[in-house]
């Protein structure tokens, strides 16, 4: 009997340890409210993964309370801690929204826990905000944890300066890894919802696809279906290409459900990706990308009418956003830059046997002339409107029997006629590989890569098999420039809602700082969050009421 108890205890212990070892992501936005069009900055901490840092990509999505997805960003964390920003769409309706953070591996885990943070959004065109659908769950006022005390002293008179002293107990100071300090406007309505809501994945999500540990990389997934019948197209090769100075290329074979995936590493920003199905039926099928969102159950809501104070605050905030745009204009953050760092010296087709620079030669009007005069080893034939290209095989000193892999600015093309009109003025360089090349399980009878002087992908739309998508990869690292800055000119009103935000990893020094309040009247709040070595979160907040 004793033995049985022992075994049960050990098994229970092991199970609880396993459950405890589950990865969790804590999200700390810099505010609980915003006006549509604002930028919400956030910090995120991965806990429960021990010393494993092989999964450093955190996805943050903004959903409505019914779990409809609105927008999403992905950030790369360093030592389990990351930060970024989320642009709240300008047209988003007034309401309460949910910020959810997750990693790709959590999608396969039906018992994963997500901590949802609520964000109250006031639409900037709403003149009278009087009621909200609020979550129908118990959200008690968050009590401050022990170990941190905050003392704030607003300067007297007209000064808007506030001095803050944060006292962290010695025991916590030694345990804490990092601290996030925020000073912002207090919203009498939104600050009811500061507590994180625990949610679990929707059962329909359990058939998660490709749970890869994303380490400085993003998993792109999609599916191929027949246009007419919507039937998944299985076992068909799909190519992904990204035009760049060193073009990116990968392939995947669609599974039973027509799904395919590509794991793209070190791609930062928003860039164009080209996906094509390589089959005779490509024109009959459609390629669509699957959104990388976490599916959780919606939150039930109940109607609540705002109090006068809450209503006044909301109206003031909307007006402030309106005047802020008049005085400062709209500053969008750089979202469309794109870069992909290279792990290797050469493109996927290896070192070129020859690189030709046509501009060094006399002007030639078309590709046929270029191949004749410049490209030795390239056989270009035009016969009765049909074009064929063959390359020299240096491996066995012969001519390849089939077409080489042709790339136009890094995008594989199957129709040689696309090259026909190119002339010496439009071509930057031509890489030719006179060997049979292998890339994983596929091979090419030589490679002919043409790079144009103005590499735009406008031509891609004229080729029906090529599908171009704008894809958002890892968010470029930016520091919030609007925080901790008082207005540059005293003649311009200051409409900041977040006055101070600091991410500290050096915790030996005492924490005291000062910040300038903005011109928006109201109480303000100071919040200190400590992330401990054991990934415990210690949180303290203090609301300063002003007369």
């Amino acid at each position, binding site marked *: 009997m004793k033995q049985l108890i022992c075994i049960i205890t050990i098994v229970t212990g092991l199970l609880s340890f396993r459950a405890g070892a589950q990865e969790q992501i804590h999200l700390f936005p810099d505010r609980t409210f915003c006006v549509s069009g604002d930028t919400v900055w956030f910090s995120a901490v991965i806990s429960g993964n021990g010393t494993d840092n092989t999964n450093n990509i955190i996805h943050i999505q903004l959903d409505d309370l019914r779990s409809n997805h609105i927008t999403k960003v992905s950030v790369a964390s360093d030592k389990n801690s990351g930060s970024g920003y989320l642009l709240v769409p300008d047209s988003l309706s007034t309401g309460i929204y949910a910020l959810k953070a997750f990693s790709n591996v959590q999608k396969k885990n039906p018992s994963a826990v997500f901590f949802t943070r609520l964000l109250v959004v006031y639409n900037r065109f709403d003149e009278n905000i009087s009621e909200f659908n609020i979550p129908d769950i118990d959200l008690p006022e968050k009590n401050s944890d022990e170990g941190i005390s905050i003392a704030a002293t607003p300067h007297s008179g007209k000064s808007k300066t506030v001095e803050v002293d944060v006292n962290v107990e010695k025991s916590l100071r030694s345990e804490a890894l990092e601290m996030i300090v925020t000073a912002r406007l207090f919203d009498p309505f939104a600050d009811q919802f500061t507590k994180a809501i625990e949610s679990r994945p929707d059962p329909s999500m359990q058939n998660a696809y*490709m749970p*890869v540990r994303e380490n400085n990389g993003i*998993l792109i997934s999609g599916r191929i279906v027949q246009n007419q019948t919507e039937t998944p197209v299985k*076992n068909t*090769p799909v190519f992904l290409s990204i035009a760049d100075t060193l073009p990116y290329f*990968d*392939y*995947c*074979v*669609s*599974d039973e459900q027509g799904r*395919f*995936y590509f*794991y793209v*590493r070190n791609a930062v920003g928003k860039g164009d990706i080209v996906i094509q199905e*390589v*089959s*005779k039926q490509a024109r009959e099928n459609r390629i669509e990308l699957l959104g990388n969102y976490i599916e959780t159950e919606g939150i039930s809501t109940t109607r609540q009418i705002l109090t006068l104070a809450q209503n006044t605050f909301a109206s003031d905030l909307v007006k402030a956003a309106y005047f802020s745009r008049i005085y400062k204009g709209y500053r969008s953050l750089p979202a469309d830059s794109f870069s992909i760092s290279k*792990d*290797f*010296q*050469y493109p*996927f*087709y*290896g*070192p070129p046997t020859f690189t030709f620079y046509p501009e060094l030669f006399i002007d030639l009007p078309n590709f046929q002339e270029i191949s004749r005069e410049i490209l030795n080893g390239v056989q270009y034939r035009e016969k009765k409107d049909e074009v064929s290209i063959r390359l020299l095989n240096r*491996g*066995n000193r012969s001519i390849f029997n*089939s*077409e*080489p*892999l*042709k790339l136009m600015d890094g995008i*594989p093309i*199957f129709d040689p006629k696309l090259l026909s009109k190119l002339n010496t003025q439009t071509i930057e360089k031509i890489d030719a*590989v006179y*060997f*049979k*090349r*292998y*890339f*994983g*399980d*596929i*091979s*090419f*009878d030589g490679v002919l890569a043409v790079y144009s002087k103005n590499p735009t992908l406008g031509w891609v739309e004229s080729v029906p098999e090529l599908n171009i998508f704008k894809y958002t990869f890892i968010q470029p690292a930016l520091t919030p420039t609007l925080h901790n800055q008082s207005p540059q000119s005293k003649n311009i009103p200051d409409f900041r809602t977040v006055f101070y935000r600091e991410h500290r990893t050096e915790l030996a020094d005492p924490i005291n700082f000062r910040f300038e309040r903005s011109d928006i009247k109201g109480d303000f709040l100071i919040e200190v969050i400590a992330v401990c070595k054991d990934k415990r979160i210690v949180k303290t907040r203090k609301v300063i009421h002003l007369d």
Partner: protein
Amino acid sequence: MQKRLKTIVTCLLIFAGVQIHAQITIQGFTLTTEANSTKYKLPGKQFYPLYVPSGSEFMDDKWQLGYVILENKDRYDSLRLKFNTYKNEVICLHNRSMSMIELDKNVIKEFGFYSVIDNLMSFQKLQRKDDPEDSHYFKMLYDGKLKIVILYQTIEKKVPAYRDKLGFMRNTSFEMRTDYYLIFPGNDFEKFKLKRTPFLNLFGVKKKEVRKVLRQNQIRLFHERDFIRAIGVIEKELY
């Protein structure tokens, strides 16, 4: 007439099909989801073996099971590999198409063979300080601040004329050479022979100290393993 037309149409259709697939050749096997991977795909070019009448262009003529680690740290295991010591390239047998692929050296960081006695034989791509463009695969014997590596090189050597198995007269033979290198901090390659005096001479002004360290640790330099042990001790005491 109709039969002929059908044949022509069929031929044309097949031809069109071949045209579109001509760029990607998948030889003798069906490309399935097995080909999918989140790793960087192994790149290389078709390998054509040389006709070698005497000797071999490989370190071992038999295919050996091994691994490859790419520059981006992706690892491939259970590959059938051969080390071509004539070209200093790794040759991989593509299991499904049975093609021989010369793997791109610029992509590979390390490769190795699992030997029968679980003793890993690993080769790392290293670049000499004096010639950073030219990288070679070296067998790693000791990897620390100091390194002992071996460069296996097969050369075509002139030999007295003989008749090969096809009956042709030949005067060359492929022979593999083994060169030991000691790599000092700063990527300083020094070639040495497995002999005590030339080995001690590599340390220049530290020669006396090295000799003392070896004496204190009772290391006699006869075999390869003695030199490896000696470097471990020298590194610990003097570097």
